[in-house]
């Protein structure tokens, strides 16, 4: 996969919608020295209003449903939504739970799916690179 130019630094907002922390610590591992995506200018930001990528983990519980929609609305365009982890993609072991509003793509449009329970940091980075390509090619709004 070759990118034409690395003209922009991706800023990522991470939203936990009921995840078990497994994906969250792998995302942290991707940001910290061994995998270190910060060298490409990617970093986690504190507000969705600063972000290019919305990174969603967790199966989206009912309580987090409207927070997810609101955070999605607050992220400025153009943006890419990435779902990390099996439970955000399909529900996984929680598929039959009575308290799920998810999976995430039922509620907001999702561009990149990263499967795995939890996905390895390499997989998270691969997903972010795909998101980057989508943004560069202007495929997303």
């Amino acid at each position: 996969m070759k990118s034409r130019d690395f003209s922009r630094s991706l800023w990522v907002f991470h939203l936990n919608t009921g995840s078990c922390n497994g994906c969250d610590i792998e995302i942290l591992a991707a940001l910290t020295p061994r995998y270190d995506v910060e060298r490409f200018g990617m970093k986690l930001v504190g507000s969705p209003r600063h972000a290019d990528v919305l990174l969603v983990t967790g199966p989206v519980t009912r309580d987090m449903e409207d927070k997810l929609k609101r955070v999605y609305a607050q992220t400025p365009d153009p943006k890419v939504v990435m779902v990390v982890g099996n439970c955000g993609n399909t529900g996984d072991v929680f598929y039959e739970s009575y308290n799920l509003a998810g999976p995430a793509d039922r509620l907001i449009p999702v561009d990149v799916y990263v499967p795995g329970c939890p996905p390895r940091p390499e997989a998270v980075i691969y997903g972010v690179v795909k998101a980057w390509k989508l943004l560069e090619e202007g495929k997303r709004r």
Partner: protein
Amino acid sequence: MRKAGDIIGQESRDTYSICVGPVHPALKEPVRLNLRVRGERIEHVDFELSQVHRGIEWMGTRRNPIQILYLSERICGICNICHTFAFCRAVESIAGIEVPPRARYIRTIVAELERIHSHILWAGVAAHELGFDSAMHYAFRAREKVLDVIENLTGNRIMKAIMMIGGVRRDMDKGQARLVMEAADFYSRCSRKLEKIFLGDPVIKSRTRDTGILTRHDCLALCSVGPTARASGVRKDVRQDEPYGAYPDVGVKAMTPDEITGETRGDVYDRIAVRLREIKQSADIIGRCVKDMPEGKIAHEDKANVLLGELRGVQGEGIGRHEAPRGEVFHYVKLVGEEAPYSWKVRAPTYNNLLSWIPMMLGAQIADIPVIAASIDPCMSCTNRAVVTGPGRRQVLGQDMLHDLSVKRTRELRRGLRP
């Protein structure tokens, strides 16, 4: 939707309500804190849970015990061994299954590796909350080694899937034993270095000393567990009080801050000290387990279908306890001779420790909230237990509402009794 002020109560001209979360950069997981402040001082603290409730216990009553193993791992990604360990112990105690000695040692080694991983992760997060990002990156780099060892032993970095009812799934060979020993040595040294960074640094010391104090009295009254309780001088540790696995052979002693710093104050500094010293303690336990590892079988029964058949005929109730990195985790299981358990109850350590936020935060400054919140190492995904839902409505019953309902009911009864 209620406003923060409604929950907190009366607002006056001098006080101000702040609502933190559930989506907030200082909180790694969804939880909502409602605070009332006067100037910079916190006067009142309340919190709301239920954002992460996934109905795991309910799903457990529709699955068989081996499927529940995978479900219980996903209660919490950081302490996944703890939940499977406690669940296995509960089911084993019902079925009267004896775990082979080698399996007990492997379980202990993996559980202690997880404790190292969790405590270092916590140290990194605490450093980040203090604005000390270089220490955070140092801690996270140090953590990668234990993840490599865990991956080598179990096949996964995070979800270990090594526990089985009546034993473990994978054996440990000589090469792996050597790797584990190397890691134990590395973390003995690493713990000293982290202690030097965290306990010796004057800035960290001034931020954390006498911040978020939990007195021994409050700690006992609120039933705090784990490092939070030990930092307040309560010698409480399941590995010491009710040894299981390989702990009876190793002999674990609860770690309190007076052994490290010479005094017990129960503040954030003490909690850092206890956790960092426990990394060394875990490394020592792992070293001893690898040296004394007995030979033999690693599981009571290799075939899952035979084991399931055995469990299907069992009836009774059982309790499993385990000292997780955050404190005691407790599982209750009731089997009634069917495929799925009749009941499954999980009590995670953060459930106890969350209440200690209140005495810790009262009187503290707003800027101290993140570090105090992080100091108990909260794990919301373990904790969220109950939410009241119904078609088209959602309601959380608070104490006030329950009290009002109770008063109303008394009045109605009184009216009915009148002649």
